[in-house]
């Protein structure tokens, strides 16, 4: 067995660097890497290769091929490039491939070679062509920086939200800079470029010359520059074979190294690990790889093949035709474990396994060691192991994984259509369904609906079988995707599975299934949703159809009526008309007769319309009442003209009362006859009015005009209300025997009331009288009643 530390290379006194194989690549490359445009996404992402025919003067008729591979070299997509010449390739943070064309157009492809969209970097770029381009990542997303043929820079910090920024001119710049890079400081992207011995920093406002502190003299040109993964550090390679390493702010030098190689390196990238103090840069030439840092010696590797470097958060990936390796600083933990005595090959897995064994052995000796972190670590390692599998091809280190988060890793698996593995991981890690399994199933379903060769029924069934009613899965989202692919029928089928009817509505509206949307909205019980659909329908349908639809949906109809009552009275009328709802139409006009119309003619006309409607509704009562009201209105108008005073809008009763109070008895009686006021009412009315007038004489005359239909007790009551006992007594004598006692009590004649009650031998009356016997005056009466009672009991 090999020694564990066999591939450990010391750099200075304190750090070891190690390079080990991730995969052996069998991707069958037909081309040399050096003949291709290469882009590899960080975090173990995919690799894109575009054989670049535009570089050499080959026949332009040969269409190049764009190949996309996983990090393990598994082919993911291959397509013929049919657009214009490409200058640069790069991956966005969402693992979309950005292809920058010479004309400034950027074409965006998915992982599987599916064309997504394109955008342009602006007219200036179009005119001057693209000389060079970089795709860079910031916390806001992925950006594109372009160097044009006019030696000007244009950049967009986030291609998701495209805002082009043209950078200021570099004074006196005649030729292309020897090298340049994008820096990101204080959340703003800058460009650092080298022209001869000078460095310039471009921000969006100005161009300023900068000098790195402690730069060795004698530099006449910068050949390469590299900015670290986190934009914190910068390395410069000069034509003297000297490497300056410092902060990206150019305020501090960290170290320097002279490698004495004057040939321009192919690539230079940072190789450091988060939270480590060690700083190192990996420089690659055609056949040589060198790791340099704050040490007099460097580590040197021989490159057997044409290789490509991919900077990562905690190291550098290096791939070639046959292998894919990872170079990184040995973590302090491993260093401690294996520094002295050590064994075995350098696969991270193996190392992990050893660490696992050690930990699992060691934890037995610790009492209070909480098992959680151990368990989580084991779980994470298993996940990493699973995704690193050759077939999956996502080689992540633990720190990359933590930086990326499990959610993003799951997204990436989904992007690669590795649904089963993603679900297994969710289940294994026991992620909540909504974040985990459901989300992945939903993605799967969205992918499924795009399979055009499968029938709608089959897709819908397959999706429902797999998803069932998994919580957190939104069938309406999947349906929306289906609709987006032009599969309306499938979308409708899928919506049927959506349990929340409210969720179905927006999509149904979008698909112009408004009537279905209306019934779903009603089902949901959300009146706002119903209202939204109604407005849609109103614009979509002609008035007649709209009303017909409403007629079949009473709930929506009520809602719309309510709205019209307040906001669109005319529409309300049309609605009733359409429905032949004459009853409501009548009511509508009645309301109009006092709410909308002011002139008497208008009011009468409104009432007439109402009466006609009531007749049509076979509501004779309402029709007659309305006609009476028309007559009354006209009459009140006449009364106002002739007698003055206020009559309009009084009720019939009040009109007559007003007439009596005004002394117009004749008129009052005429009116009562005309409107057939029943006798009883008239008597009550006159009685009240005359008593109010305190016209006792007239009242007496009235009481004698004929036998009162309401009896004479009311006369007594009303006189007493006016505190006229004298008048009251007059009527008390005329009250019929049944109410005599009450009447007598009202006028305060307790003694006589007692006599009548005794005469009636009515127990209830006796108690009533007794309850009125108060004080000394009625003592005798009370006794009398008691005696009568006693006598009655004897009998």
């Amino acid at each position: 067995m090999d020694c564990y530390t066999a591939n450990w290379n010391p750099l200075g006194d304190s750090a070891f660097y190690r390079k080990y194989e991730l995969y052996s690549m069998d991707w069958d490359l037909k081309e040399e890497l050096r003949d291709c445009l290469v882009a590899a996404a960080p975090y173990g992402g995919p690799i894109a290769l575009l054989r670049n025919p535009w570089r050499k003067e080959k026949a332009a008729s040969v269409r190049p091929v764009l190949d996309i591979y996983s990090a393990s070299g598994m082919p993911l997509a291959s397509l013929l490039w049919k657009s214009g010449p490409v200058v640069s390739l790069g991956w966005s943070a969402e693992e979309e491939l950005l292809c920058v064309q010479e004309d400034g157009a950027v074409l965006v492809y998915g992982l599987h070679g599916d064309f997504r969209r394109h955008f342009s970097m602006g007219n200036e770029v179009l005119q001057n062509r693209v000389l060079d381009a970089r795709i860079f990542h910031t916390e806001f997303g992925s950006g594109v920086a372009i160097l044009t043929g006019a030696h000007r820079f244009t950049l967009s910090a986030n291609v998701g939200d495209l805002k082009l920024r043209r950078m200021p001119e570099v004074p006196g710049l005649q030729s292309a800079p020897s090298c340049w890079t994008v820096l990101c400081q204080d959340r703003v992207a800058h460009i650092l470029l080298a022209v001869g011995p000078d460095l310039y920093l471009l921000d969006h406002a100005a161009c300023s010359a900068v000098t790195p502190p402690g730069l060795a003299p004698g530099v006449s040109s910068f050949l390469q520059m590299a900015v670290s993964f986190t934009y914190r550090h910068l390395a410069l390679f000069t034509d003297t074979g000297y490497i300056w390493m410092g902060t990206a702010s150019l305020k501090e030098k960290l170290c320097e190294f002279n490698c004495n190689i004057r040939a321009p390196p192919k690539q230079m990238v940072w190789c450091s690990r988060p939270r480590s103090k060690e700083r190192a840069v990996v420089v690659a030439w055609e056949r040589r790889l060198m790791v340099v840092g704050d040490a007099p010696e460097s580590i040197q590797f021989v490159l057997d093949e044409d290789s490509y470097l991919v900077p990562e958060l905690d190291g550098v990936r290096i791939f070639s035709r046959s292998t894919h390796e990872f170079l990184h600083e040995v973590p302090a933990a491993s260093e401690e474990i294996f520094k002295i005595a050590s064994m075995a090959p350098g696969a991270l897995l193996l190392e992990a396994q050893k660490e696992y064994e050690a930990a699992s052995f060691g934890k037995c000796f610790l009492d209070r060691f909480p098992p959680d972190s151990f368990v989580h670590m084991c779980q994470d390692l298993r996940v990493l192991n699973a995704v690193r599998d050759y077939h999956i091809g996502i080689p992540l280190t633990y720190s990359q994984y933590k930086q990326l988060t499990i959610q993003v890793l799951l997204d990436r698996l989904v992007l690669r259509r590795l649904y089963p593995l993603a679900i297994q991981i969710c289940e294994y890690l026991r992620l909540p369904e909504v974040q985990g399994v459901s989300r992945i199933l939903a993605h799967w379903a969205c992918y499924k609906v795009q399979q055009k060769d499968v029938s709608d029924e089959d897709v819908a069934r397959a999706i429902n079988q797999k998803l069932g009613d998994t919580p957190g899965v939104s069938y309406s989202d999947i349906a929306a995707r289906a609709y987006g692919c032009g599969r309306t029928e499938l979308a409708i089928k899928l919506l049927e599975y959506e349990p929340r009817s409210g969720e179905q509505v927006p999509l149904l509206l979008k698909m112009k299934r408004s009537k279905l949307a209306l019934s779903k909205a009603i089902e949901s019980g959300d009146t706002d949703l119903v209202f939204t659909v109604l407005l849609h329908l109103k614009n979509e349908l002609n008035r007649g159809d709209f009303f017909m639809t409403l007629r079949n949906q009473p709930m929506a109809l009520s809602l719309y009526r309510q709205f019209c009552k307040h906001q669109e009275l005319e529409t309300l009328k049309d609605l009733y008309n359409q429905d032949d709802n004459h009853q409501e139409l009548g009511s509508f006009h009645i309301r109009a007769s006092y709410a909308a119309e002011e002139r008497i003619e208008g009011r009468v006309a409104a009432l007439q319309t109402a009466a006609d409607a009531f007749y049509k509704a076979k509501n004779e009562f309402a029709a007659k009442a309305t006609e009476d009201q028309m007559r009354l209105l006209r009459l009140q108008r006449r009364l106002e003209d002739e007698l003055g005073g206020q009559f309009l809008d009084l009720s019939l009763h009040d009109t007559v009362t007003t007439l009596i109070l005004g002394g117009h008895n004749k008129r009052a009686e005429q009116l009562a006859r005309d409107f057939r006021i029943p006798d009883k009412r008239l008597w009550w009315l006159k009685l009240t009015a005359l008593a109010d007038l305190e016209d006792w004489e007239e009242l007496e005359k009235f009481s004698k005009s004929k036998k009162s239909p309401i009896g004479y007790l009311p006369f007594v009551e009303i006189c007493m209300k006016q505190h006229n006992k004298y008048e009251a007594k007059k009527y008390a004598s005329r009250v019929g025997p049944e109410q005599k006692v009450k009447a007598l009590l009202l006028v305060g004649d307790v003694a006589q009331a007692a006599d009548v009650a005794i005469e009636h031998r009515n127990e209830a009356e006796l108690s009533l009288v007794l309850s009125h016997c108060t004080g000394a005056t009625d003592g005798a009466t009370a006794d009398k009643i008691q005696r009568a009672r006693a006598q009655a009991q004897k009998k």
Partner: protein
Amino acid sequence: MAFPHRPDAPELPDFSMLKRLARDQLIYLLEQLPGKKDLFIEADLMSPLDRIANVSILKQHEVDKLYKVENKPALSSNEQLCFLVRPRIKNMRYIASLVNADKLAGRTRKYKVIFSPQKFYACEMVLEEEGIYGDVSCDEWAFSLLPLDVDLLSMELPEFFRDYFLEGDQRWINTVAQALHLLSTLYGPFPNCYGIGRCAKMAYELWRNLEEEEDGETKGRRPEIGHIFLLDRDVDFVTALCSQVVYEGLVDDTFRIKCGSVDFGPEVTSSDKSLKVLLNAEDKVFNEIRNEHFSNVFGFLSQKARNLQAQYDRRRGMDIKQMKNFVSQELKGLKQEHRLLNIGACESIMKKKTKQDFQELIKTEHALLEGFNIRESTSYIEEHIDRQVSPIESLRLMCLLSITENGLIPKDYRSLKTQYLQSYGPEHLLTFSNLRRAGLLTEQAPGDTLTAVESKVSKLVTDKAAGKITDAFSSLAKRSNFRAISKKLNLIPRVDGEYDLKVPRDMAYVFGGAYVPLSCRIIEQVLERRSWQGLDEVVRLLNCSDFAFTDMTKEDKASSESLRLILVVFLGGCTFSEISALRFLGREKGYRFIFLTTAVTNSARLMEAMSEVKA
């Protein structure tokens, strides 16, 4: 007097949290408009707001001046205007007129509209139509539950009744569902649910959907309230239409309790000032008499008054120290009681209500409930109308007659309506149309009296119709069947001799021993059976065959204490009489009832909601 609760009666949950929630949310919304602002408040929201946040709290959050939303141009000179309104179209037009006037004057201010309890799309649309949608910012103050008392939560939505039961507008049902959802998140799930009525069922289903959507939140919580019972007002109009004779109900009928407090006018305070008094369980004297039949109250209050006088008299002959002690300890309690004895000044009610008129009115009502002397009652009502006693009272009696008799006979229907129009004005033609639609005042179909055979036939007819009725309102087809229901549920207690109102035997005491409130009886029966089983006939007679439901979940988590707590939800309002009756039932059975109502109502409010008034 003031029957104590059984010692094993469960504790009520603490609902003051709802107030805190509402207050915090309001403050948050006010702070969303930083700086000084004038607040325009809709009249209906003033009293509820007052119970949540007083003026000083509003001032703390930079509310400068307060205005009432009314149809007048605003005089505010503030640069920021905030409107606190119900989601009504007329409010939107008011705001629009204000904003547009500013625009004409070339003035720019910040406007914010806070809808309570929620905003409606129609309102936003009106803002858009008026061209000011972009000028105002809209927010929602989800304040839907106001604890009026320890056992009474009100949504303060009196318009619910008219909107739903007359206009068929269902928009508030969602608000109810939201409120129930809030309760279940705060006080745990309800293991047992019962309900009756179309609206109850819809609200219940919407609520269930909400719970499912937010699965997990309430899971695992221990239920604090064991039962919930939802009931539509139209299941029992009769009870709500009766004159109230229990003290709290009587105060409501006479003085109108508004948002838990009442304004006693000069005739009560026997001074020249009006006095606003908060009526709730914290008020010791009131709490003792609120559920009493009014005939007991007066005696009780005079006794109290005498005691008080005696306590006051003790002051004489005290030395300074004793006096100090007296003032600091007893006077505090005393003063409160004394203030409450303003209620004693409710002599004014007594005067009014013990008069012969009132007794005759009650007699007529009892006759209607029991179904005898119908002719006499009809003439009484006629006279009532002829004498123009009160438009609302007359209407109430007509409705009571109609419902108890399954509709008026055609002759009476016509003549009473004619009389009514003559007395109170022709616009009430629309009132009658409303009442007919709501099923409150209808005409008997020919041959509509119930015989055994006919009732079977009508069963067939209504069952068939039930399948066909697609109208959101089927009230037209409904018959009240009150008499039959009354018989089935034994609503009219057989009384041998005098009903002793001081020692009530059953819930009928709230109506002087003459009638057990139908709504409360239904609740009692269902709780006893824990289901609707055996009540099929009643449910059918109530026209609720499709809308009576039970939903039980496992009770293993519910404590026996929580299982004796019952939340009763009245959709369309409940009366104080019903509250008193159920409080009585609770005391008898060792339950505690909690009431949630869209608003506290009474007969006058119901009638006013149905009335057309000339604006």
